[in-house]
Protein backbone atom coordinates (compact mmCIF):
# COMPACT_ATOMS: atom_id res chain seq x y z
CA UNK A 1 0.00 0.00 0.00
CA UNK A 2 2.77 2.37 0.97
CA UNK A 3 4.56 1.50 -2.26
CA UNK A 4 1.46 2.16 -4.33
CA UNK A 5 0.88 5.61 -2.80
CA UNK A 6 4.54 6.61 -3.19
CA UNK A 7 4.44 5.43 -6.80
CA UNK A 8 1.28 7.35 -7.58
CA UNK A 9 2.63 10.53 -5.98
CA UNK A 10 5.75 10.27 -8.15
CA UNK A 11 3.54 9.61 -11.17
CA UNK A 12 2.00 13.07 -10.88
CA UNK A 13 5.30 14.75 -11.71
CA UNK A 14 6.08 12.20 -14.41
CA UNK A 15 2.76 12.96 -16.07
CA UNK A 16 3.68 16.65 -16.22
CA UNK A 17 7.06 15.92 -17.85
CA UNK A 18 5.43 13.66 -20.42
CA UNK A 19 2.74 16.24 -21.22
CA UNK A 20 5.49 18.74 -21.98
CA UNK A 21 7.15 16.29 -24.32
CA UNK A 22 3.95 15.25 -26.03
CA UNK A 23 3.08 18.89 -26.75
CA UNK A 24 6.52 19.42 -28.28
CA UNK A 25 6.38 16.27 -30.38
CA UNK A 26 2.69 16.23 -31.21
CA UNK A 27 2.24 19.90 -32.09
CA UNK A 28 5.66 21.34 -32.88
CA UNK A 29 6.82 18.03 -34.50
CA UNK A 30 10.12 18.14 -32.64
CA UNK A 31 11.33 14.98 -30.92
CA UNK A 32 13.02 16.93 -28.15
CA UNK A 33 15.73 14.74 -26.66
CA UNK A 34 16.94 17.67 -24.54
CA UNK A 35 13.66 17.68 -22.61
CA UNK A 36 15.28 16.11 -19.55
CA UNK A 37 17.97 18.81 -19.48
CA UNK A 38 15.18 21.36 -19.28
CA UNK A 39 13.97 19.54 -16.21
CA UNK A 40 17.45 19.39 -14.70
CA UNK A 41 18.02 23.12 -15.30
CA UNK A 42 14.71 23.90 -13.58
CA UNK A 43 15.51 21.62 -10.65
CA UNK A 44 18.95 23.16 -10.15
CA UNK A 45 17.47 26.65 -10.45
CA UNK A 46 14.90 25.82 -7.79
CA UNK A 47 17.73 24.52 -5.60
CA UNK A 48 19.70 27.71 -6.14
CA UNK A 49 16.71 29.99 -5.52
CA UNK A 50 15.88 28.14 -2.31
CA UNK A 51 19.35 27.81 -0.82
CA UNK A 52 20.80 31.17 -1.91
CA UNK A 53 17.84 33.54 -2.13
CA UNK A 54 15.63 31.59 0.25
CA UNK A 55 12.69 31.51 -2.15
CA UNK A 56 10.05 28.86 -1.48
CA UNK A 57 10.05 26.28 -4.35
CA UNK A 58 6.31 26.67 -4.93
CA UNK A 59 6.68 30.43 -5.33
CA UNK A 60 9.81 29.83 -7.41
CA UNK A 61 7.52 28.31 -10.04
CA UNK A 62 6.41 31.85 -10.82
CA UNK A 63 9.99 32.66 -11.84
CA UNK A 64 11.12 29.35 -13.34
CA UNK A 65 8.09 28.61 -15.51
CA UNK A 66 8.04 31.93 -17.42
CA UNK A 67 11.83 31.79 -17.77
CA UNK A 68 11.62 28.28 -19.23
CA UNK A 69 8.85 29.45 -21.57
CA UNK A 70 11.05 32.24 -22.93
CA UNK A 71 14.12 30.00 -23.18
CA UNK A 72 12.24 27.32 -25.11
CA UNK A 73 10.60 29.93 -27.33
CA UNK A 74 14.08 31.18 -28.26
CA UNK A 75 15.43 27.65 -28.78
CA UNK A 76 12.60 26.83 -31.14
CA UNK A 77 12.75 30.13 -33.02
CA UNK A 78 16.54 30.13 -33.46
CA UNK A 79 17.63 26.52 -33.68
CA UNK A 80 14.66 24.37 -34.60
CA UNK A 81 12.42 26.41 -36.88
CA UNK A 82 15.02 26.55 -39.69
CA UNK A 83 15.04 22.74 -39.61
CA UNK A 84 11.23 22.59 -39.82
CA UNK A 85 11.31 24.99 -42.76
CA UNK A 86 13.94 23.13 -44.75
CA UNK A 87 12.68 19.58 -44.08
CA UNK A 88 11.31 17.89 -47.15
CA UNK A 89 9.60 15.09 -45.26
CA UNK A 90 8.55 14.12 -41.78
CA UNK A 91 11.35 11.54 -41.65
CA UNK A 92 13.99 14.10 -42.55
CA UNK A 93 12.74 16.44 -39.83
CA UNK A 94 12.80 13.61 -37.32
CA UNK A 95 16.46 12.81 -37.99
CA UNK A 96 17.45 16.50 -38.00
CA UNK A 97 15.55 17.34 -34.83
CA UNK A 98 16.99 14.32 -33.03
CA UNK A 99 20.53 15.41 -33.88
CA UNK A 100 19.92 19.09 -33.11
CA UNK A 101 18.35 18.33 -29.74
CA UNK A 102 21.27 16.03 -28.94
CA UNK A 103 23.37 19.14 -29.49
CA UNK A 104 21.17 21.11 -27.09
CA UNK A 105 21.35 18.27 -24.60
CA UNK A 106 25.14 18.38 -24.46
CA UNK A 107 25.32 22.17 -24.44
CA UNK A 108 22.80 22.51 -21.59
CA UNK A 109 24.49 19.69 -19.68
CA UNK A 110 27.90 21.25 -20.25
CA UNK A 111 26.73 24.62 -18.99
CA UNK A 112 25.16 23.04 -15.90
CA UNK A 113 28.38 21.15 -15.16
CA UNK A 114 30.35 24.37 -15.48
CA UNK A 115 28.03 26.31 -13.18
CA UNK A 116 27.08 23.69 -10.60
CA UNK A 117 29.72 20.98 -10.99
CA UNK A 118 29.08 17.26 -11.11
CA UNK A 119 27.93 16.75 -7.52
CA UNK A 120 24.54 15.75 -6.13
CA UNK A 121 22.09 18.36 -4.91
CA UNK A 122 19.14 18.21 -2.63
CA UNK A 123 17.53 20.46 -0.10
CA UNK A 124 15.01 20.08 2.68
CA UNK A 125 11.66 21.63 1.99
CA UNK A 126 8.60 20.68 4.04
CA UNK A 127 10.18 17.33 4.71
CA UNK A 128 7.71 16.68 7.52
CA UNK A 129 5.67 13.51 7.96
CA UNK A 130 2.10 13.64 6.80
CA UNK A 131 -0.46 11.01 7.82
CA UNK A 132 -2.37 9.45 4.96
CA UNK A 133 -4.48 6.28 5.28
CA UNK A 134 -2.68 5.35 8.46
CA UNK A 135 0.88 5.73 7.11
CA UNK A 136 3.13 8.73 6.99
CA UNK A 137 4.71 10.20 3.87
CA UNK A 138 6.77 13.34 3.21
CA UNK A 139 4.48 16.35 2.92
CA UNK A 140 6.62 17.68 0.03
CA UNK A 141 5.56 14.71 -2.11
CA UNK A 142 1.91 15.64 -1.64
CA UNK A 143 2.64 19.28 -2.46
CA UNK A 144 4.44 18.22 -5.64
CA UNK A 145 1.60 15.92 -6.65
CA UNK A 146 -0.98 18.62 -5.93
CA UNK A 147 0.99 21.19 -7.91
CA UNK A 148 1.31 18.82 -10.84
CA UNK A 149 -2.41 18.04 -10.75
CA UNK A 150 -3.37 21.74 -10.73
CA UNK A 151 -1.04 22.52 -13.64
CA UNK A 152 -2.23 19.50 -15.62
CA UNK A 153 -5.87 20.48 -15.07
CA UNK A 154 -5.15 24.03 -16.18
CA UNK A 155 -3.51 22.68 -19.34
CA UNK A 156 -6.50 20.49 -20.04
CA UNK A 157 -8.94 23.40 -19.66
CA UNK A 158 -6.74 25.56 -21.87
CA UNK A 159 -6.53 22.96 -24.65
CA UNK A 160 -10.15 21.85 -24.52
CA UNK A 161 -12.04 25.05 -23.70
CA UNK A 162 -10.22 28.05 -25.14
CA UNK A 163 -9.99 29.29 -28.70
CA UNK A 164 -6.19 29.20 -28.86
CA UNK A 165 -6.11 25.75 -27.26
CA UNK A 166 -8.38 24.49 -30.01
CA UNK A 167 -6.09 26.04 -32.61
CA UNK A 168 -3.15 24.17 -31.11
CA UNK A 169 -5.04 20.88 -31.23
CA UNK A 170 -5.87 21.61 -34.86
CA UNK A 171 -2.17 22.01 -35.67
CA UNK A 172 -1.49 18.71 -33.94
CA UNK A 173 -4.02 16.95 -36.17
CA UNK A 174 -2.95 18.48 -39.49
CA UNK A 175 -0.64 21.49 -39.86
CA UNK A 176 -1.54 22.07 -43.51
CA UNK A 177 -5.30 22.07 -42.93
CA UNK A 178 -4.82 24.26 -39.85
CA UNK A 179 -3.08 26.82 -42.02
CA UNK A 180 -6.03 26.80 -44.41
CA UNK A 181 -8.43 27.86 -41.67
CA UNK A 182 -6.32 30.91 -40.83
CA UNK A 183 -4.35 29.49 -37.92
CA UNK A 184 -0.82 30.86 -37.72
CA UNK A 185 0.85 27.42 -37.69
CA UNK A 186 4.37 28.72 -37.08
CA UNK A 187 3.31 30.76 -34.09
CA UNK A 188 1.15 27.96 -32.68
CA UNK A 189 4.05 25.49 -33.04
CA UNK A 190 6.47 27.85 -31.33
CA UNK A 191 3.93 28.48 -28.57
CA UNK A 192 3.35 24.76 -28.08
CA UNK A 193 7.09 24.07 -27.92
CA UNK A 194 7.61 26.85 -25.37
CA UNK A 195 4.61 25.71 -23.35
CA UNK A 196 5.89 22.14 -23.38
CA UNK A 197 9.26 23.34 -22.10
CA UNK A 198 7.55 25.37 -19.37
CA UNK A 199 5.53 22.33 -18.24
CA UNK A 200 8.66 20.20 -18.00
CA UNK A 201 10.41 22.95 -16.07
CA UNK A 202 7.47 23.12 -13.66
CA UNK A 203 7.80 19.38 -13.17
CA UNK A 204 11.53 19.83 -12.57
CA UNK A 205 11.09 22.38 -9.81
CA UNK A 206 8.33 20.34 -8.15
CA UNK A 207 10.47 17.21 -8.36
CA UNK A 208 13.44 18.99 -6.78
CA UNK A 209 11.52 19.35 -3.50
CA UNK A 210 11.92 15.65 -2.76
CA UNK A 211 14.42 14.28 -5.28
CA UNK A 212 18.22 14.37 -5.34
CA UNK A 213 19.46 16.19 -8.43
CA UNK A 214 22.61 16.26 -10.48
CA UNK A 215 23.63 17.99 -13.68
CA UNK A 216 23.76 14.87 -15.84
CA UNK A 217 20.53 13.13 -14.91
CA UNK A 218 18.50 14.72 -17.72
CA UNK A 219 18.83 11.85 -20.18
CA UNK A 220 17.27 9.41 -17.74
CA UNK A 221 14.18 11.61 -17.46
CA UNK A 222 14.02 12.12 -21.21
CA UNK A 223 13.95 8.34 -21.51
CA UNK A 224 11.11 8.05 -19.00
CA UNK A 225 9.12 10.83 -20.65
CA UNK A 226 9.56 9.29 -24.10
CA UNK A 227 8.43 5.90 -22.90
CA UNK A 228 5.40 7.45 -21.18
CA UNK A 229 4.49 9.32 -24.35
CA UNK A 230 4.78 6.16 -26.45
CA UNK A 231 2.83 4.10 -23.91
CA UNK A 232 0.09 6.69 -23.73
CA UNK A 233 0.01 7.30 -27.46
CA UNK A 234 1.57 10.38 -29.08
CA UNK A 235 -0.56 13.49 -28.48
CA UNK A 236 -2.91 11.71 -26.07
CA UNK A 237 -2.94 13.63 -22.77
CA UNK A 238 -5.23 11.14 -21.00
CA UNK A 239 -3.03 8.25 -22.10
CA UNK A 240 0.05 10.09 -20.89
CA UNK A 241 -1.42 10.49 -17.39
CA UNK A 242 -2.31 6.80 -17.12
CA UNK A 243 1.06 5.73 -18.54
CA UNK A 244 2.93 8.06 -16.17
CA UNK A 245 1.17 6.59 -13.15
CA UNK A 246 1.86 3.04 -14.38
CA UNK A 247 5.53 3.77 -15.00
CA UNK A 248 6.06 5.46 -11.65
CA UNK A 249 4.29 2.58 -9.95
CA UNK A 250 6.44 -0.02 -11.73
CA UNK A 251 9.60 1.87 -10.80
CA UNK A 252 8.65 2.21 -7.16
CA UNK A 253 7.68 -1.46 -6.90
CA UNK A 254 10.96 -2.63 -8.46
CA UNK A 255 13.14 -0.27 -6.46
CA UNK A 256 11.54 -1.10 -3.11
CA UNK A 257 11.01 -4.84 -3.61
CA UNK A 258 13.95 -5.90 -5.80
CA UNK A 259 16.78 -3.36 -6.11
CA UNK A 260 16.91 0.46 -6.48
CA UNK A 261 19.57 -0.03 -9.15
CA UNK A 262 17.12 -1.70 -11.49
CA UNK A 263 14.55 1.07 -12.08
CA UNK A 264 15.61 1.50 -15.69
CA UNK A 265 15.11 -2.20 -16.26
CA UNK A 266 11.52 -1.80 -15.05
CA UNK A 267 11.06 1.13 -17.44
CA UNK A 268 12.41 -0.92 -20.33
CA UNK A 269 10.24 -3.90 -19.48
CA UNK A 270 7.16 -1.68 -19.81
CA UNK A 271 8.56 -0.19 -23.01
CA UNK A 272 9.13 -3.59 -24.60
CA UNK A 273 5.65 -4.77 -23.63
CA UNK A 274 4.17 -1.62 -25.18
CA UNK A 275 6.16 -2.02 -28.39
CA UNK A 276 5.15 -5.64 -28.75
CA UNK A 277 1.49 -5.49 -27.79
CA UNK A 278 0.27 -1.91 -28.16
CA UNK A 279 2.70 0.18 -30.23
CA UNK A 280 -0.12 2.67 -30.88
CA UNK A 281 -0.52 3.45 -27.16
CA UNK A 282 -2.81 2.28 -24.37
CA UNK A 283 -5.89 4.05 -25.72
CA UNK A 284 -4.67 4.28 -29.30
CA UNK A 285 -6.50 2.73 -32.19
CA UNK A 286 -4.68 0.49 -34.58
CA UNK A 287 -4.27 2.16 -37.97
CA UNK A 288 -3.32 -0.01 -40.88
Amino acid at each position, binding site marked *: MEIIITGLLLGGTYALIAMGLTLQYGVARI*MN*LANGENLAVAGLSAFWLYTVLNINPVLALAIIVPAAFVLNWLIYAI*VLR*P*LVDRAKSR*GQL*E*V*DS*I*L*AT*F*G*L*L*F*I*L*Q*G*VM*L*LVFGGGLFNYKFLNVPYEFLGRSYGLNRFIAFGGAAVIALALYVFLARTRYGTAIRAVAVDPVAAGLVAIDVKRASTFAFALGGALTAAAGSLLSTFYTFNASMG*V*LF*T*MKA*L*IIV*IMGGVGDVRGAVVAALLLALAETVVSSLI*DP*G*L*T*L*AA*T*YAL*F*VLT*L*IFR*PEGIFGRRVT
Partner: protein
Amino acid sequence: MSITANEYRTLAMAIVAFGLAALVPQFASGHTLTIAVTIVEYAALCTAWTLFSGPTRYISLATAAFFGIGNYMVGLGIDTIPFAALVALSAVGAAILAALVGLATLRLSGVYFVIFTLGLAELVRQVVTWWQTNYTTKVGLYVFTDFREQHVYWMLLALTAAVFVTGWLINRSRLGFAMRIIGNDETVASHVGINTAGAKVLLFMISGAFIGIVGALLAPRYAYVQPPSAFNPMISFQVVIMALLGGTRRLWGPLVGVVPFIVLTDFINAQFPDYTNIVIGVAFIAIVFLVPDGVLGRIEQAIGAMRARAGPSADAREEPAE
Protein backbone atom coordinates in the same frame (compact mmCIF):
# COMPACT_ATOMS: atom_id res chain seq x y z
CA MET B 1 29.32 -10.86 -60.67
CA SER B 2 32.85 -10.20 -61.75
CA ILE B 3 35.20 -7.68 -60.22
CA THR B 4 35.64 -4.60 -62.38
CA ALA B 5 38.93 -2.86 -63.16
CA ASN B 6 37.77 0.05 -61.06
CA GLU B 7 37.30 -2.21 -58.09
CA TYR B 8 40.82 -3.61 -58.55
CA ARG B 9 42.13 -0.06 -58.46
CA THR B 10 40.21 0.67 -55.24
CA LEU B 11 41.49 -2.59 -53.76
CA ALA B 12 45.10 -1.71 -54.59
CA MET B 13 44.68 1.74 -53.07
CA ALA B 14 43.08 0.26 -49.95
CA ILE B 15 45.90 -2.25 -49.51
CA VAL B 16 48.49 0.51 -49.79
CA ALA B 17 46.55 2.67 -47.30
CA PHE B 18 46.26 -0.15 -44.76
CA GLY B 19 49.92 -1.06 -45.29
CA LEU B 20 51.00 2.49 -44.52
CA ALA B 21 48.66 2.64 -41.52
CA ALA B 22 50.18 -0.60 -40.22
CA LEU B 23 53.63 1.05 -40.16
CA VAL B 24 52.49 3.81 -37.78
CA PRO B 25 53.60 2.04 -34.54
CA GLN B 26 57.15 1.83 -35.99
CA PHE B 27 57.43 5.60 -35.88
CA ALA B 28 54.98 6.67 -33.22
CA SER B 29 55.25 6.12 -29.50
CA GLY B 30 53.90 7.49 -26.26
CA HIS B 31 51.09 9.98 -26.65
CA THR B 32 51.09 9.85 -30.47
CA LEU B 33 50.61 6.09 -30.40
CA THR B 34 47.80 6.47 -27.86
CA ILE B 35 46.01 8.85 -30.21
CA ALA B 36 46.67 6.50 -33.13
CA VAL B 37 45.04 3.64 -31.21
CA THR B 38 42.03 5.82 -30.42
CA ILE B 39 41.79 6.78 -34.09
CA VAL B 40 41.71 3.16 -35.29
CA GLU B 41 39.30 2.31 -32.46
CA TYR B 42 36.82 4.90 -33.69
CA ALA B 43 37.58 4.10 -37.33
CA ALA B 44 36.45 0.54 -36.64
CA LEU B 45 33.45 1.64 -34.55
CA CYS B 46 32.27 4.26 -37.05
CA THR B 47 32.55 2.05 -40.11
CA ALA B 48 30.76 -0.76 -38.29
CA TRP B 49 28.09 1.76 -37.28
CA THR B 50 27.77 2.99 -40.86
CA LEU B 51 27.32 -0.59 -42.07
CA PHE B 52 23.84 -0.42 -40.55
CA SER B 53 23.02 3.26 -40.11
CA GLY B 54 24.32 4.38 -43.51
CA PRO B 55 21.84 2.53 -45.71
CA THR B 56 18.93 2.54 -43.24
CA ARG B 57 19.43 6.12 -41.91
CA TYR B 58 18.44 4.86 -38.45
CA ILE B 59 20.51 6.60 -35.78
CA SER B 60 21.77 3.86 -33.52
CA LEU B 61 22.93 4.78 -30.02
CA ALA B 62 23.48 1.15 -29.08
CA THR B 63 27.23 1.32 -29.76
CA ALA B 64 28.17 1.64 -26.09
CA ALA B 65 26.05 -1.40 -25.20
CA PHE B 66 27.70 -3.65 -27.81
CA PHE B 67 31.12 -2.25 -26.96
CA GLY B 68 30.54 -2.88 -23.26
CA ILE B 69 29.46 -6.46 -23.87
CA GLY B 70 32.74 -7.17 -25.67
CA ASN B 71 34.71 -5.37 -23.00
CA TYR B 72 33.01 -7.28 -20.23
CA MET B 73 33.18 -10.64 -21.95
CA VAL B 74 36.97 -10.36 -21.95
CA GLY B 75 37.02 -9.11 -18.36
CA LEU B 76 34.99 -12.09 -17.18
CA GLY B 77 36.75 -14.81 -19.11
CA ILE B 78 40.37 -13.74 -19.55
CA ASP B 79 41.65 -16.05 -16.80
CA THR B 80 39.96 -19.18 -18.10
CA ILE B 81 39.18 -18.85 -21.82
CA PRO B 82 41.61 -18.10 -24.70
CA PHE B 83 41.46 -14.51 -25.95
CA ALA B 84 40.47 -15.49 -29.49
CA ALA B 85 37.49 -17.45 -28.19
CA LEU B 86 36.45 -14.46 -26.08
CA VAL B 87 36.53 -12.22 -29.14
CA ALA B 88 34.24 -14.66 -30.94
CA LEU B 89 31.94 -14.83 -27.90
CA SER B 90 31.78 -11.03 -27.81
CA ALA B 91 30.64 -10.96 -31.41
CA VAL B 92 27.96 -13.54 -30.67
CA GLY B 93 26.81 -11.75 -27.50
CA ALA B 94 26.54 -8.38 -29.22
CA ALA B 95 24.73 -9.94 -32.18
CA ILE B 96 22.19 -11.56 -29.86
CA LEU B 97 21.53 -8.21 -28.14
CA ALA B 98 21.21 -6.55 -31.56
CA ALA B 99 18.71 -9.20 -32.62
CA LEU B 100 16.58 -8.61 -29.50
CA VAL B 101 16.62 -4.83 -29.95
CA GLY B 102 15.96 -5.17 -33.65
CA LEU B 103 13.04 -7.53 -33.22
CA ALA B 104 11.43 -5.19 -30.66
CA THR B 105 11.86 -1.96 -32.61
CA LEU B 106 12.78 -2.35 -36.27
CA ARG B 107 9.26 -3.36 -37.28
CA LEU B 108 8.19 0.15 -36.22
CA SER B 109 9.29 3.63 -37.24
CA GLY B 110 12.78 5.01 -36.70
CA VAL B 111 11.93 7.11 -33.64
CA TYR B 112 11.20 4.05 -31.53
CA PHE B 113 14.56 2.63 -32.50
CA VAL B 114 16.47 5.78 -31.48
CA ILE B 115 14.65 5.97 -28.15
CA PHE B 116 15.23 2.31 -27.42
CA THR B 117 18.94 2.49 -28.14
CA LEU B 118 19.31 5.77 -26.21
CA GLY B 119 18.96 4.04 -22.85
CA LEU B 120 20.24 0.63 -23.87
CA ALA B 121 23.81 1.00 -22.61
CA GLU B 122 22.54 2.33 -19.28
CA LEU B 123 20.10 -0.58 -19.04
CA VAL B 124 22.78 -3.20 -19.67
CA ARG B 125 25.06 -1.41 -17.23
CA GLN B 126 22.39 -1.51 -14.51
CA VAL B 127 21.70 -5.19 -15.08
CA VAL B 128 25.40 -6.11 -15.09
CA THR B 129 26.09 -4.08 -11.93
CA TRP B 130 23.09 -5.62 -10.19
CA TRP B 131 24.11 -9.13 -11.19
CA GLN B 132 27.71 -8.58 -10.10
CA THR B 133 26.89 -7.06 -6.73
CA ASN B 134 24.32 -9.72 -5.92
CA TYR B 135 25.81 -12.89 -7.35
CA THR B 136 29.55 -12.27 -7.47
CA THR B 137 31.89 -10.64 -5.01
CA LYS B 138 33.48 -7.85 -7.05
CA VAL B 139 32.32 -5.18 -9.48
CA GLY B 140 35.54 -4.41 -11.35
CA LEU B 141 37.59 -6.95 -13.29
CA TYR B 142 41.30 -7.01 -14.05
CA VAL B 143 42.50 -7.86 -17.54
CA PHE B 144 46.17 -8.77 -17.67
CA THR B 145 47.56 -9.79 -21.05
CA ASP B 146 50.81 -9.62 -22.97
CA PHE B 147 49.30 -7.23 -25.50
CA ARG B 148 50.91 -3.85 -25.72
CA GLU B 149 49.61 -0.66 -27.33
CA GLN B 150 50.88 -1.52 -30.81
CA HIS B 151 49.30 -5.00 -30.74
CA VAL B 152 45.94 -3.46 -29.93
CA TYR B 153 46.53 -1.04 -32.79
CA TRP B 154 47.24 -3.82 -35.30
CA MET B 155 44.29 -5.91 -34.19
CA LEU B 156 41.95 -2.92 -34.54
CA LEU B 157 43.40 -2.08 -37.93
CA ALA B 158 42.83 -5.64 -39.12
CA LEU B 159 39.29 -5.47 -37.80
CA THR B 160 38.65 -2.22 -39.69
CA ALA B 161 39.83 -3.97 -42.86
CA ALA B 162 37.48 -6.84 -42.08
CA VAL B 163 34.58 -4.39 -41.72
CA PHE B 164 35.36 -2.94 -45.14
CA VAL B 165 35.56 -6.38 -46.76
CA THR B 166 32.26 -7.34 -45.11
CA GLY B 167 30.67 -4.11 -46.31
CA TRP B 168 31.85 -4.82 -49.84
CA LEU B 169 30.57 -8.40 -49.71
CA ILE B 170 27.20 -7.26 -48.33
CA ASN B 171 26.93 -4.75 -51.14
CA ARG B 172 27.28 -7.56 -53.69
CA SER B 173 24.88 -9.89 -51.89
CA ARG B 174 21.11 -10.25 -51.89
CA LEU B 175 21.06 -8.43 -48.54
CA GLY B 176 22.83 -5.41 -50.02
CA PHE B 177 20.48 -5.36 -52.99
CA ALA B 178 17.50 -5.53 -50.64
CA MET B 179 18.93 -2.69 -48.53
CA ARG B 180 19.31 -0.46 -51.58
CA ILE B 181 15.67 -1.02 -52.51
CA ILE B 182 14.56 -0.38 -48.92
CA GLY B 183 16.64 2.79 -48.89
CA ASN B 184 14.96 4.03 -52.05
CA ASP B 185 11.41 3.18 -51.09
CA GLU B 186 10.45 0.93 -48.23
CA THR B 187 6.88 0.41 -49.46
CA VAL B 188 8.10 -0.79 -52.85
CA ALA B 189 10.56 -3.09 -51.10
CA SER B 190 7.87 -4.79 -49.05
CA HIS B 191 5.63 -5.11 -52.12
CA VAL B 192 8.26 -6.95 -54.16
CA GLY B 193 8.51 -9.48 -51.36
CA ILE B 194 11.49 -8.27 -49.35
CA ASN B 195 11.29 -9.02 -45.64
CA THR B 196 12.24 -5.45 -44.72
CA ALA B 197 12.32 -5.94 -40.94
CA GLY B 198 14.31 -9.16 -41.34
CA ALA B 199 16.90 -7.51 -43.57
CA LYS B 200 17.33 -4.61 -41.15
CA VAL B 201 17.66 -6.92 -38.13
CA LEU B 202 20.30 -9.02 -39.92
CA LEU B 203 22.31 -5.94 -40.87
CA PHE B 204 22.04 -4.56 -37.33
CA MET B 205 23.34 -7.88 -35.96
CA ILE B 206 26.37 -7.80 -38.27
CA SER B 207 27.13 -4.20 -37.30
CA GLY B 208 26.64 -4.97 -33.59
CA ALA B 209 28.91 -8.01 -33.74
CA PHE B 210 31.78 -5.93 -35.10
CA ILE B 211 31.28 -3.29 -32.40
CA GLY B 212 31.31 -6.07 -29.79
CA ILE B 213 34.67 -7.22 -31.16
CA VAL B 214 36.08 -3.69 -30.86
CA GLY B 215 35.04 -3.71 -27.20
CA ALA B 216 36.77 -7.05 -26.69
CA LEU B 217 40.00 -5.94 -28.37
CA LEU B 218 40.17 -2.81 -26.22
CA ALA B 219 39.77 -4.57 -22.87
CA PRO B 220 43.53 -5.34 -22.62
CA ARG B 221 44.27 -1.65 -23.18
CA TYR B 222 42.38 -0.55 -20.07
CA ALA B 223 43.58 -3.46 -17.87
CA TYR B 224 40.67 -2.79 -15.52
CA VAL B 225 37.06 -3.22 -16.65
CA GLN B 226 34.15 -1.82 -14.67
CA PRO B 227 30.55 -1.03 -15.68
CA PRO B 228 30.73 2.80 -15.90
CA SER B 229 33.75 2.76 -18.22
CA ALA B 230 32.67 -0.23 -20.31
CA PHE B 231 29.13 1.03 -20.88
CA ASN B 232 30.03 4.70 -21.23
CA PRO B 233 27.19 6.29 -23.28
CA MET B 234 29.59 8.94 -24.61
CA ILE B 235 31.03 6.30 -26.97
CA SER B 236 27.67 6.05 -28.74
CA PHE B 237 27.34 9.79 -29.20
CA GLN B 238 30.91 10.29 -30.38
CA VAL B 239 30.52 7.54 -32.96
CA VAL B 240 27.38 9.23 -34.31
CA ILE B 241 29.12 12.60 -34.54
CA MET B 242 32.24 11.30 -36.26
CA ALA B 243 30.37 9.12 -38.72
CA LEU B 244 27.93 11.88 -39.68
CA LEU B 245 30.72 14.44 -39.85
CA GLY B 246 32.54 12.35 -42.44
CA GLY B 247 29.44 11.24 -44.30
CA THR B 248 27.61 7.93 -44.28
CA ARG B 249 26.80 7.48 -47.96
CA ARG B 250 30.03 5.56 -48.45
CA LEU B 251 31.56 3.10 -46.05
CA TRP B 252 34.87 4.98 -45.91
CA GLY B 253 33.13 8.33 -45.36
CA PRO B 254 33.34 8.19 -41.54
CA LEU B 255 37.15 7.99 -41.72
CA VAL B 256 37.11 11.60 -42.92
CA GLY B 257 35.37 12.57 -39.67
CA VAL B 258 37.27 10.35 -37.24
CA VAL B 259 40.77 11.80 -37.57
CA PRO B 260 40.00 15.52 -37.09
CA PHE B 261 37.47 14.87 -34.34
CA ILE B 262 39.80 12.66 -32.28
CA VAL B 263 42.59 15.20 -32.59
CA LEU B 264 40.17 17.97 -31.59
CA THR B 265 38.76 16.13 -28.56
CA ASP B 266 42.27 15.21 -27.46
CA PHE B 267 43.19 18.89 -27.54
CA ILE B 268 39.98 19.95 -25.74
CA ASN B 269 40.39 17.26 -23.07
CA ALA B 270 43.93 18.43 -22.40
CA GLN B 271 43.35 22.19 -22.49
CA PHE B 272 39.70 22.77 -21.54
CA PRO B 273 38.45 19.58 -19.85
CA ASP B 274 35.32 21.32 -18.54
CA TYR B 275 34.14 22.20 -22.01
CA THR B 276 34.03 18.70 -23.53
CA ASN B 277 30.24 18.43 -23.39
CA ILE B 278 29.72 21.87 -24.88
CA VAL B 279 32.06 21.04 -27.76
CA ILE B 280 30.13 17.83 -28.46
CA GLY B 281 26.85 19.76 -28.36
CA VAL B 282 28.12 22.40 -30.75
CA ALA B 283 29.44 19.65 -33.04
CA PHE B 284 25.98 18.07 -33.29
CA ILE B 285 24.31 21.37 -34.16
CA ALA B 286 27.07 22.29 -36.60
CA ILE B 287 26.65 18.97 -38.42
CA VAL B 288 22.89 19.43 -38.77
CA PHE B 289 23.22 22.97 -40.10
CA LEU B 290 26.49 22.99 -42.03
CA VAL B 291 27.22 19.47 -43.30
CA PRO B 292 23.96 17.47 -43.24
CA ASP B 293 25.46 14.96 -45.71
CA GLY B 294 28.88 14.97 -44.09
CA VAL B 295 32.09 16.56 -45.28
CA LEU B 296 32.35 13.91 -47.97
CA GLY B 297 28.85 14.70 -49.20
CA ARG B 298 29.86 18.36 -49.41
CA ILE B 299 32.99 17.53 -51.40
CA GLU B 300 31.07 15.30 -53.79
CA GLN B 301 28.52 18.08 -54.23
CA ALA B 302 31.27 20.53 -55.05
CA ILE B 303 32.88 18.10 -57.54
CA GLY B 304 29.49 17.52 -59.12
CA ALA B 305 28.95 21.25 -59.48
CA MET B 306 32.40 21.71 -61.03
CA ARG B 307 31.77 18.94 -63.52
CA ALA B 308 28.40 20.41 -64.42
CA ARG B 309 30.14 23.70 -65.15
CA ALA B 310 32.81 21.96 -67.23
CA GLY B 311 30.06 20.66 -69.48
CA PRO B 312 27.41 17.95 -69.27
CA SER B 313 29.32 15.61 -71.60
CA ALA B 314 32.25 15.25 -69.21
CA ASP B 315 29.82 14.35 -66.46
CA ALA B 316 28.12 11.73 -68.63
CA ARG B 317 31.43 10.06 -69.48
CA GLU B 318 32.43 9.78 -65.84
CA GLU B 319 29.11 8.42 -64.62
CA PRO B 320 29.26 4.74 -65.80
CA ALA B 321 32.56 4.23 -63.99
CA GLU B 322 30.76 4.67 -60.65
